[in-house]
């Protein structure tokens, strides 16, 4: 069964139609990178996948469950879908450790002791064990984003969504965050990554989706999409960013 199935997804903000008709399927362990000009709807597309944006029309199935159907418990579904934001959105009144353990403990997924053990294991993984007692305000941007990734992983999600995870970082911080994401991809995590890092998309992505004007204009394996784009709009976008 596919991890995510998007059928004729439409999303409007008032009169403005941001996503006009988007359909695609994401398979388990697939790493899909979503690229496109700003305002193309790529972030909105990602945010519809866990219903952070209410979906205007169409269907999104996560793990076979239709998230547009109010009979399905969206809070339960979201536990399986981790999300990492451009602006990190760490909880500033909590330590790094508390940020990571909050959801698993409050949602009764783990005991406080087990959640802490898991948090340290995740901090090891992102290379920040020594920051467990620090507050987000004491971390650099790259460290914050790595903590945010650990926080999302603490719920053992089946899917990870990344919304321009490196766009707010100083250039020298980008590498550390991308390295953590590469490790995740290697471990077989299903990932959807909205990004401007074409190098990352080419190297790690199994597939690249180019969104423009509210439609998927073109999707293909990175080598084909970057090396041999079929559509004029894809060509013109790539000529500006590559």
């Amino acid at each position, binding site marked *: 069964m596919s991890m995510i199935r998007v059928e004729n997804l439409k999303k409007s903000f008032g009169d403005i139609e941001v996503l006009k008709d988007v359909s695609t399927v994401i398979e388990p362990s697939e790493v899909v990178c979503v690229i496109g000009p700003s305002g193309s709807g790529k972030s909105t597309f990602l945010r519809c996948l*866990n219903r*952070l944006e209410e979906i205007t029309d169409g269907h999104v199935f996560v793990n076979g469950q239709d998230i547009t159907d109010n009979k399905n418990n969206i*809070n*339960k579904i*979201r*536990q399986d*879908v*981790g*999300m990492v*934001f451009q*602006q990190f*959105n*760490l*909880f*500033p*009144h909590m330590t790094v450790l508390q940020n990571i353990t*909050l*959801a698993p403990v*409050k*949602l009764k997924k783990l005991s406080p002791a087990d959640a802490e053990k898991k948090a340290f294991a995740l901090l090891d993984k992102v290379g920040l064990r020594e920051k467990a007692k620090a*507050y*987000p*305000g*004491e971390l650099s941007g790259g460290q914050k984003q790595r903590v*945010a990734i650990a*926080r*999302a992983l603490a*719920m053992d999600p089946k899917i990870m*969504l990344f919304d321009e995870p490196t766009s707010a970082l100083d250039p020298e911080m980008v590498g550390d965050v991308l390295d953590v994401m590469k490790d995740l991809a290697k471990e077989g995590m299903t990932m959807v990554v909205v990004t401007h890092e074409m190098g990352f998309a080419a190297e790690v992505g199994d597939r690249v989706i180019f969104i423009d004007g509210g439609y998927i204009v073109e999707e293909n394996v990175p080598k084909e999409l970057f090396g041999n784009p079929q559509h004029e709009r894809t060509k013109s976008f790539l000529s500006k960013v590559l």
Partner: protein
Amino acid sequence: MQDFIPALTELYDKIKAAMPTLLDGLQVTLYIFAVAIVLGFLIGLVMALFRLSPIKPLQWISKIFVDAIRGTPFIVQLFFIYFGLNSLSFISLDNTWAGILTVAINAGAYFAEIIRAGIQSIDKGQTEAARSLGLDSTQNMRFVVLPQAFRRMLPTITNQAIISLKDTSLLSIIGVADLTQRGRVVVSATYDPFTIYLLLGIMYFVIIYLLSLLSSYLERRFVLR
């Protein structure tokens, strides 16, 4: 110099004689303040959550309540609750409870606006992060939004608490034996309004000063990070 020492002694005796009565009053004032401020805060919290809820009728209730209280004088509210409500046969409030209720409701309307603004000042990315982890809206409020909002609100909350403390002195009008009413009693017995009202002012000032010290201590204790 010869006149100075006796004058000072006389003043000391006057204060000493007035003190037991005034301290009784102070106790009543602090009791009313403590109960009313806790009640008022709960009213404010509920009204703020009503205002921010997606359910329209709850928003209306909150808006009407806040507008009605902010748009009328404290004294009118006090008279309405003490004389007005008590004129209904099925309600009977003594003057202390009528006073507590008025201060609580009055503070509640202002707290509602303070808390609403505090909640809205928290970046919506915080809520998105919490919800994306699977927390429901109640858990998001309780663990993520409100703890941050309260830290931000602390100075404004203190400000309203100080105003409410001063408002309690108006309860003397309906005969509550608070600090101000006790002061008036002492004045009518001693015929010395200058000394007694000055003393009264100093006592209120000290309490309010202590309150603002407590607030700045709390602000330092829970630094916004």
